[in-house]
């Protein structure tokens, strides 16, 4: 299937000339759920904000790359075209629904404002559509909840309400920015199930931003792992979890609490801290923390290349963990 959204070599630069996001590329097929995984500061949220041009004006700039959506380059849209695309083409939900929903307006009002923006509808039609949206996201007694305010919902219900508000724009791609981080584990699973259902039943494509590989394992078809503003590995979820090719990915997997249940050993961590924008290391940005780093890693930036062409497993590492690849590289 041809991809719906293609991000090609996206680069985001600060005023000081630091690349917070550096040559990031990935694509998203219709109905696919792609995970963007990384620590704080890895550039995953920035990348997604850039798709909608919601970067802080003046402070950050997109200095390179293309974003193809439905045959158009999103980085070259006029402000007006971008406004029409936001919500309808690419929608977004956030980590903290209680601050991202206007506290003074009812949930119904906030859905209605999106519905009205995209077509002349009567009051009745708007109400009917809103009720069905609330039903769709699994909010009980939607008729009454329509007139509730955000503060009257529980955390999980509030997240559902925010999803419903985003769905009111009928987006084709939904960016979910850490949608479950602030929730209890049980509620977390329900929200993930809801998102999964939305893409299966309505063909919604979802980009799931998270730092939690567990979330990815439950829901995503493919995963892109970001580190220091660069992609280090991108692969189908099962592939990545079973055969990580990048030492960083391996570290992330080892850090997952449940990964250690069988091992009985102490909880593993990756030594050191992720680099800040001001002190990005040369070469491979992960090399100061990488247990397998060689001299080449300190000076030369690894390019993203195929590990296994047929499955689309790609990695940016001079010494990937997959044997097969080692041999291939040695031919060079």
């Amino acid at each position, binding site marked *: 299937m041809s991809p719906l959204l293609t991000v090609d070599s996206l680069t985001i630069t600060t*005023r000081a000339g630091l690349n917070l996001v550096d040559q990031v590329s990935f694509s998203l097929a219709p109905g696919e759920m792609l995970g963007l995984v990384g620590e*704080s*500061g890895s*550039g995953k949220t*920035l990348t997604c904000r850039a798709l909608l041009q919601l*970067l802080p004006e*003046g402070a950050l700039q997109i200095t390179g790359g293309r974003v193809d959506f439905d045959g158009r380059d999103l980085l070259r849209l006029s402000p007006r075209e971008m406004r029409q695309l936001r919500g309808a083409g690419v929608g977004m939900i956030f980590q903290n629904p209680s601050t*991202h929903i206007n506290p003074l307006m009812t949930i119904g009002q906030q859905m209605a404002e999106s519905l009205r923006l995209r077509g002349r509808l009567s009051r009745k039609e708007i109400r009917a559509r809103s009720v069905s949206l609330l039903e769709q996201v699994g909010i009980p007694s939607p008729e009454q909840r329509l007139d509730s305010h955000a503060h009257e919902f529980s955390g999980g219900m509030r997240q559902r309400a925010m999803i419903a508000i985003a769905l009111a724009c009928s987006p084709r791609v939904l960016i979910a920015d850490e949608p479950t981080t602030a929730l209890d584990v049980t509620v977390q699973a329900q929200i993930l199930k809801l998102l999964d259902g939305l893409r299966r039943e309505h063909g919604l494509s979802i980009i799931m931003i998270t*730092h939690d590989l567990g979330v990815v394992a439950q829901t995503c078809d493919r995963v892109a792992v970001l580190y220091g503003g660069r992609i280090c590995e991108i692969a189908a979820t099962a592939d990545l979890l079973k055969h990580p090719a990048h030492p960083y990915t391996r570290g992330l997997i080892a850090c997952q609490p449940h990964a250690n249940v069988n091992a009985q050993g102490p909880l593993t961590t990756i030594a050191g801290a992720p680099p800040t924008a001001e002190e990005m290391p040369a070469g491979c940005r992960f090399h100061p923390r990488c247990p397998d780093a060689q001299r080449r890693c300190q000076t030369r930036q690894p390019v993203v290349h195929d590990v296994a062409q047929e499955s689309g497993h790609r990695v940016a590492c001079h010494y990937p963990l997959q044997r097969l690849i080692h041999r291939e590289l040695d031919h060079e």
Partner: protein
Amino acid sequence: MTALTSTQISMGQRVTAPLRRLSRDLSQRTTLKIGLAIVLGWVLVALLAPWISPYDPVYQDLTTRLAPMSWAHPMGTDNFGRDILSRVIYSARVDLQICLLGVIFPFIIGTVLGTFSGYIGGWCDAIVMRLIDIVLAFPFLVLMLAIITILGPGLSSFFIAMALVGWVSYARLVRARVLVLKQSDFVLAARSLGYSHSRIICKHLLPNVLTDAVVFSMSDVVLVLLNGAAISYLGLGVQPPVAEWGVMVTEGQGFITTAWWLTAFPGLAIVLLAVGFSFIADGLSENRGGTQ
């Protein structure tokens, strides 16, 4: 991902970029400097009044009544032939006194009551809070006028009324701060170490609370000055023939059709001093991370 919280992305963001922020911080410090310069300037004028004023402020020269501005009388003369510039200069002594004493009594009363009310809590707090509610139920100026009615017109009545009414805002501010500080780690630690209450209040609470109260007093002093001048203007504060800016405006009001300088200059003096204090208040609250 917290590198960029969404709160940073907004229309407001486009200007808090480093360069602009730097220039804003500088301009803040300038407001503070300008404010200090203005107020210190007035203090100097008041102290040096006998040497810098060209005439005796109460000397009446009936040959030059209502004279417009000239080299001899830069601000003209009033209906008794008194030199307005000299009167404006001498007024600074009275008005600065209004500022100082009008702030200091409410400051002390409010800080003490607020500290005890917040620290002790219970019935003490309840009484102070009800008292505050009741005082706030009256319009500030009206309650002051009512108290001055009982005491009779005059500057000392003004100070008493100011003390009786003005303490409320200090008490509220200080009480709120004390309530927060009371729960802070260092006070809890001090209590667990068995320090006496008086030591905790004097060594730990007051120093923190006082800075807040001082910053607030800089904006309060503007209100005190305007109120003092207004009450004198109404004829219930400073009594003629003492020169005071509010009194001068009253005296000149009868001549607005012919001699505007009688009212214009004393009023400008009030504005200048008030703006000086406002600038200080602005600069201080910005430096302390205020939102205004």
